């Protein structure tokens, strides 16, 4: 039983990383109906920036905070420069542009920092935490707390601030919002900035576990896709719950079902994506949309 409790907590830790990245995808999907395929690489790139700051002698938490600022500015800049020109183009065009961004960021990270895998300092204590007779890794608990705090702040921002309300309005009713004086494209850029911040958080949380290299997010972005689809790609709450559920399920499958092990985890994520999209395209928490033709 102790083992099971540990496995669940460590599943929740990976799950909250998936949740952060999935929320980043949902933020952009809700505001413009686009999947940002470069979300994982943006997270990877900002994590490298954090690493660089730590190398320059900054304490890890200071590097973390500074990276979040850089990520926000970078996300806004990418939206303005790359996405705004194709904002109203066909989905194929935007998909290809985000793919181009994915490949470019991957290459730039390779150019600046090389392809050798680097260790990343963990911001959390390494001594385990004992609850009764069960011991949990402090890193797992730390990852869960930081991710949940970030998710909570984002939720409060959207629910309680005027800016958050304007962003939601711009996403749902762009034309009406424009009439009311909301600068819709500015809201979209803000959405990209926030998504980049969530990505950076997921990257910095996962880097001590998977280590740092330009391809570190390639698998994780697939899990984030699966989490977002499972929860309903339009639902922020769904993305969070989808991420947590996926983290726990994959961890338990990998530990207790020998036929799946670690090799087939990505295959399971792929299967979840296809099955959910086929049988319940709105996911667990999304609303079923109707389309006028």
């Amino acid at each position, binding site marked *: 039983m102790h083992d099971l409790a540990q496995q669940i907590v460590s599943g929740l830790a990976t799950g909250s990383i998936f949740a952060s990245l999935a929320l980043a995808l949902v933020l952009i999907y809700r505001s413009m*109906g*686009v*999947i940002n*395929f470069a979300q994982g690489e943006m997270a990877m790139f900002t994590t490298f920036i954090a690493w660089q700051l730590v190398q320059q002698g900054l304490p890890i938490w200071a590097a973390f905070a500074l990276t979040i600022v850089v990520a926000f500015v970078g996300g806004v800049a990418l939206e303005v420069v*790359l996405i705004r*020109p*194709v904002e109203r183009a066909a*989905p*194929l*065009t935007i*998909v*290809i*542009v985000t*793919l*181009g*961004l*994915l*490949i*470019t*960021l*991957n*290459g*730039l*990270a*390779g*150019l600046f920092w090389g*392809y050798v895998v680097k260790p990343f300092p963990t911001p959390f204590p390494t001594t385990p935490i004992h609850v009764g007779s069960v011991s949990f890794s402090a890193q797992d608990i730390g990852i869960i707390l930081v991710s949940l705090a970030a998710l909570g702040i984002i939720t409060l921002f959207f629910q309680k601030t005027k800016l958050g309300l304007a962003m939601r309005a711009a996403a749902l009713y762009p034309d009406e919002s424009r009439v009311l004086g909301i600068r819709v494209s500015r809201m979209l850029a803000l959405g990209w900035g926030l998504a980049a911040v969530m990505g950076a958080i997921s990257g910095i949380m996962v880097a001590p576990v998977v280590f740092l290299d330009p391809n570190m997010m*390639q*698998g994780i*972005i*697939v899990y984030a*896709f*699966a989490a977002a*689809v499972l929860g309903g790609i339009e639902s922020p709450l769904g993305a969070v719950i989808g991420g947590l559920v996926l983290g726990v399920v994959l961890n338990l499958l990998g530990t207790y079902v020998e036929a799946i*092990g670690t*090799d*087939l*985890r*990505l*295959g399971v*994520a*792929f299967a979840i*994506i*296809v099955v959910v*999209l*086929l049988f319940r*395209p709105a996911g667990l928490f999304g609303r079923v949309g109707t389309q006028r*033709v």
Partner: protein
Amino acid sequence: MMSSPRIDRRIGIAIVALAIVILPWVLPAYGSFELTYVGAYAIAILGLVILTGLSGQISLGHGAFLAVGGYTVAILGQHAGVPYWLSICAAGVICGLLGLAIGLVASRLEGVYLALSTFALAVATPSILKHFKGLTGGSGGITLPTIAAPGALHAGLSPEQWLYYLTWAIAGLLFFVASSLLRGRIGRSLRALRDNEVAAVSFGVSPSYYKTLAFGWSAAYAGIAGALVAVATAFVSPDSYGFAVSLALVTGAVLGGLDSLWGALIGAVIIEFLPLWAQKISSAAPSIVYGLALIVVMLFAPGGIAGFFRRVVVDLRRRLPTHSRRPL
């Protein structure tokens, strides 16, 4: 100065065909070998042009079909001793059927969702291949026998030249099939569905039928391409079918031009030679060049290189006073 687009095109095809026939006699063996890959990639990208360009479905996971094609040749050869020419056909059939099955699912997914699912498939492919060790040989992969020209041709052709002609003969056949079918009912229906699905449906064109068909067709091409790559490389392994391969195919299709069969050829040349050339600068350079090229093409020349040339040609024709103004 009277020239019609149709005659222009025939001249273009004749020049390219002639160049393809002559090249292995003037290039060193290694050059033929590289061009063999160009032929195989051209087939796979042609599949993407059919699927994405003509049917409007985005697949970011065609590397998976390349893998199935390659492993079909490897496994049939290793476990059943099937000769490679037969297993290349088998790769096409198996991938075609697999593509039809996936196409049934895909036709129900809207654009962005299909891209998302195939992205996941592309990333998951190597680890799935590693998992089924009994069949695929796990991480170590499978080594294939090298091939040489059969019987009477053996004396006249080096193995590289034989591989080259085999690949390009198949490519020529598949391009011909595509060009004929796309000019007929199938091509018209696909274009109609892509441009205005509601209108096409009201004229009795079934979206799910044609979209599924396009997926199967495209997958069969990718499978044959994968088989040819495997035969040429004489080796298959999970890590050679990673996400990068799927990305390279999409990049080739977009840069070459998604709406043109020529685009497939141009795209194949790009994805074979551009990385080799860029690698000399830095190991990260190919990615950066690919990525920036994708963005620039999408922002400024969505028709890719083929589309760009077509525009230039059309523009020139308009300016030539002697030219009869026939609609293009």
